């Protein structure tokens, strides 16, 4: 997993609530046996007319050249629905390292963190402030300080992250490395419970 410390970047706003993982990556694109290449199908059915890559929907932010950067900002309850980690892979593969919303579905949040994508949960009011900014505005996300700042206005907010997960992300550690180091304790647990 790639470490994440500070991200300063413009952002792509998708001001829609309850974005489910079927929108992030439709099921028909889950047929790969590797983790690569999902970015081109990120938000596929909102990005193109009739599934046609030559017909990008002009009203969708991913198709606006002025919206760019490493940060995706989306409406409340982002990532609900299917547990498909392909959703996190497609976001990472497209080039995002941070997703900002006022509420995240549990499984998506775990999947994102397990791939080095930070889910930053802010208040509804702070999210509105971000959506109110123009495309040139940059956001600064500082994981060590657990803060997100709108650089044009100086508005800043704190966000929560479990201290274990924070250490993992700052250093690029995977859970699986930790769990493998726990093998003796796991085997002892199995023996003792019978």
């Amino acid at each position, binding site marked *: 997993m790639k470490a994440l410390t500070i991200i300063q970047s413009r952002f792509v706003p998708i001001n829609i*609530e309850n974005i489910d993982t079927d929108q992030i990556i439709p099921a028909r694109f889950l047929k790969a046996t590797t983790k690569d290449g999902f970015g081109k199908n990120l938000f596929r059915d909102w990005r193109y007319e009739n599934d046609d890559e030559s017909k990008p929907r002009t009203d969708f932010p991913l198709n606006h050249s002025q919206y760019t950067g490493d940060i995706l900002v989306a409406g409340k*309850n982002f990532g609900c629905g299917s*547990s*498909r980690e392909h959703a996190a892979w497609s976001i990472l593969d497209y080039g995002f390292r941070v997703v900002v919303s006022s509420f995240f579905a549990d499984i998506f949040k775990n999947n994102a963190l397990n791939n080095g994508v930070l889910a930053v949960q802010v208040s509804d009011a702070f999210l509105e402030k971000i959506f109110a900014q123009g495309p040139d505005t940059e956001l600064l996300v500082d994981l060590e300080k657990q803060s997100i700042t709108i650089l044009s206005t100086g508005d800043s907010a704190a966000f929560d992250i479990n201290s274990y997960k924070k250490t993992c992300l700052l250093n690029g550690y995977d859970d699986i490395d930790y769990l493998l180091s726990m093998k003796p304790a796991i085997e002892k647990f199995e023996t003792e419970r019978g």
Partner: protein
Amino acid sequence: MAKTLFEKIWEKHVVKTIDGGPSVLYIDKHLIHEVTSPQAFTGLNNRGIKVFRPQQVVATADHNVPTLNQHLPIKEELGRKQVEALVKNCAEHGIELYGLGHPFQGIVHVIGPELGFTQPGMTIVCGDSHTSTHGAFGSIAFGIGTSEVEMVMATQCLMQSRPKLMRITVDGTLNKGVVSKDIVLYILSKISASGATGYAVEFAGSAIRSLSMEARMTICNMSIEMGGRCGLIAPDETTFSYVDGRKFAPQGADWDKKLAEWKKLFTDADALFDKEYHFDAADIQPMITYGTNPGMGIGVTEVIPAADTVHESDRSGLNKSLAYMGLQQGAPIKGQKIDYVFIGSCTNSRIEDLRMVASFVKGKKKADDVEVWIVPGSKQVEAQAIKEGIDKVFEEAGFQLRQPGCSACLGMNEDKIPAGKYCISTSNRNFEGRQGAGARTLLASPLTAAAAAITGVVSDVRELMN
């Protein structure tokens, strides 16, 4: 100290808790399928390690499989390769696979319970959000991502933070024509599609206790649609008699020992929850969804809500949803033309669901311009349906009984609903494009879906029942 059902199970599975962090949680049973496992096997192979406890894993192929002519190779190349990868990976790692053609093949959340692999008091995971289904047996069961599938394969453990605890109590007697799917769609319409996010949800109350195991599974299955980390119901005699005698169920003295443990699995009288809801079964009528998340449901005789009456979590998205669905605020849903009826999925494809539909449609014929697909949840369900003559009832009604798989629930395999068409579906998600790009999904119970199959429009099943 008084404890909830969830706490009793959780505490027995904690290997270690990290200060200020998650717990290392031991996982008893792991179900895998072809879509969310290949990258996990690749991860193990890259590390040069084998599956740690292969005897605690069961695999099946369900998401990509066709539901007609299963004896032929899967036509679509990528889907076929995923299924082939599962066969190869299971062989290399010593995992029991109930693949295409096997008499136990089926939807992962249907075969776990019917084989007795799912038991009370367990921790159960699968790379599939509807793993919550297994909580109907009084187990902690939840969906995980592929990185976590790899962790469980490697160590039989996961790093998990304990969720908050919610109890939803439904008391009273169900009205005529109302079944467990209506209960869960009703709860969703009240608390919204994110109402239980961050919580483990225990379902309790006399209306829940009165349900069969199949009906309880439908409710726990859709606890993820509320955002719940898992859903669970305390095991009782209904649970024990369902598990007894199944393939993986404990036998003899082992059964007696396990049964004694299972009988302690209930929430103590004065145990505390972080949040509680109470509903009265008498308030529930046959339900249907009109929007693009499962919380957007109404009674079949109600009108589609306006922006000022809809749940606040759906207010900003209401117009977008209705535009996608081609429906209008304030219009009745009853009478809405239907093109497809899909009865299947891990929510409603068990033998009881098929029996319920068969008993209702016996002697009736489907409407001319409606296509009706009945997709059993497993080979065992299919075999039982044929044994009981249910296949004949469907044939006479003009319904098509297909072969087991996830089918039209998720727009992944060959079974897709065409763009713009309306499908009344017993599945769990009505998201945009879920059943195929542009498809319009109305979620309902098997009874309400069967009623629409007969009339060709959204109908009140109570008016058609004897």
